[in-house]
């Protein structure tokens, strides 16, 4: 092989740079990676972003708070409900409004359903990236069931916009509890199938174990959160250390692994789906009676000051930083998006691995590009 390489002048020794994306199927959006290679080995990865930069932060400065909620759907579209919640919680905190228990519990259930469907899609596409097309069909088949629950209650399937400052847009559908319970019963049965199909698969394990290892120090220094951080042993679950909504009244474990490789980033998400189901189990029969929203003034003005609210989306810590000057529009809004920080480790963890591993590593970070560009 080496002789052949010498003869033809290709292969091992040659260095070159290739473009991966912005339309590469494995980047799941418009992410362009400029990859420097030596033979097949990755030397450097430089992400080029901004293809879906819509200037959401700038737009927020000229619209009102209830309108901002509908823009946050468009950042991390798979955690749409949790993004909405972050803005609502921040506005409610600034106005010092007490939210009815019913709202808190419904929000928590919705957030956990969102997390499950996001991880299902992750599982589906990650399997597909690594060559298992069946995963894609299984994952989307089950995700559809969550989407139907959303559709019945919220009207929307993906970009739900179900929250509004002070509570929820409308009450839950009478069928909601029944359908969620049906789904949990169904998914408890099908989740082991996921493990049988992919987790235990030898080819899958060979391609993910020990690939793209991220150390704990780097995980903290690069600001990774969510499953990426927790796979490296970084305890960063906002639901645990700064509980919001109804997370302080449910029992669940923070999923932590210490290896920090692609396989463990995958395992964190598999375990999180189980934890999410446990959380929903504890709440679904105990939704308190009461109002589904507090009556708010037609024009919401936040008192002058700065407000920061963080929530745990399916991909990590989302922070909403609002500076208000007392008007109905915010003075400045900053979204600290989890994917933006997670993307920055891609270069350091993929150095020295093969170009085919880059697909696995990139897939395991579970990047949503509109959340990075905003």
């Amino acid at each position, binding site marked *: 092989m080496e002789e052949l390489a010498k003869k033809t002048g290709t292969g091992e020794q040659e260095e070159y740079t290739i473009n991966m994306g912005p339309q590469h199927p494995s980047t799941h959006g418009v992410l362009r990676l400029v990859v420097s290679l030596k033979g097949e080995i990755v030397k450097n990865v430089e992400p080029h972003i*901004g293809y879906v930069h819509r200037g959401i932060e700038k737009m927020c400065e000229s619209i009102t708070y209830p309108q901002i909620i509908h823009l946050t759907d468009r950042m991390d579209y798979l955690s749409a409900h949790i993004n909405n919640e972050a803005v609502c919680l921040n506005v409610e905190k600034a106005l010092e409004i007490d939210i009815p228990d019913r709202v808190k519990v419904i929000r928590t259930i919705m957030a956990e359903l969102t997390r499950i469907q996001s991880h299902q899609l992750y599982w589906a596409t990650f399997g597909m990236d690594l060559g298992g097309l069946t995963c894609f069909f299984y994952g989307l088949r089950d995700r559809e069931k969550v989407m139907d629950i959303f559709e019945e209650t919220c009207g929307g399937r993906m970009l739900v916009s179900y929250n509004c400052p002070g509570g929820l847009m409308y009450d839950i559908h009478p069928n909601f509890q029944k359908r969620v319970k049906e789904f949990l019963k169904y998914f408890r049965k099908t989740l082991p199938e996921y493990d049988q199909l992919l987790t235990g698969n030898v080819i899958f394990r060979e391609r993910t174990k020990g690939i793209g290892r991220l150390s704990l120090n780097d995980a*903290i220094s*690069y*600001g990774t959160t969510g499953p990426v951080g927790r796979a490296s042993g970084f305890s960063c679950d906002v639901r645990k250390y700064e509980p919001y909504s109804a997370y302080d009244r449910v029992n669940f474990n923070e999923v932590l692994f210490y290896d920090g490789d692609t396989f463990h980033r995958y395992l964190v998400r598999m375990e999180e789906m189980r934890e999410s189901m446990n959380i929903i189990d504890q709440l679904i029969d105990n939704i308190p009676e009461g109002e589904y929203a507090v009556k708010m003034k037609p024009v919401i003005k936040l008192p002058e*000051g700065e407000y920061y609210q963080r929530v745990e989306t399916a991909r990590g810590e989302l922070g909403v930083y609002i500076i208000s000057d007392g008007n109905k529009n915010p003075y400045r809004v900053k979204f600290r998006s989890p994917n933006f920080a997670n993307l*920055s480790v891609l270069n350091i963890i993929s150095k020295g691995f093969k170009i085919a591993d880059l697909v696995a590593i990139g897939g395991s970070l579970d990047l949503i590009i509109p959340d990075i560009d905003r």
Partner: protein
Amino acid sequence: MDNTGLSELIRLFDEEIEIKEGKQFLEISVPASKLHRLANQLKDNENTCFDFLFCLSGVDYGNDLGVVYHIRSTKYNHSVVIKTRTPDRDNPMIDSVTDIWQTAEYHEREVFDLLGIKFKNHPDLRRLFLSRSWGFPLRKDYVDNINIVTKS
């Protein structure tokens, strides 16, 4: 550690810095020249140990341009906010904290892209989202008659 203990500890680093109890976090205001030293001390000191920079935002305050750092200690689980400003709008310069918290590299590039604040000693300060000829859209005096429609 509670906020009073923390503010006493931080005051030991430098007596002149301004510490204010905010609604949510302890807020420290430092001049841009002292920022890097303070950030270094906050990270390295055993009792503060702020190792996790979770948010870095650029703000246009009207006359001044500023950067706000939200940092947290993963060991003690306490947080503070550092604020710094520069009155120079034509050539704003603030020390980079990339050598202290690696995540600042991307965040500072974003701030440079959208607000035009330059970071000294940044390893790779290029625009992130927009092209080179674009203005700095998050500044309050940014004018774009084509893409931004304002209703009166």
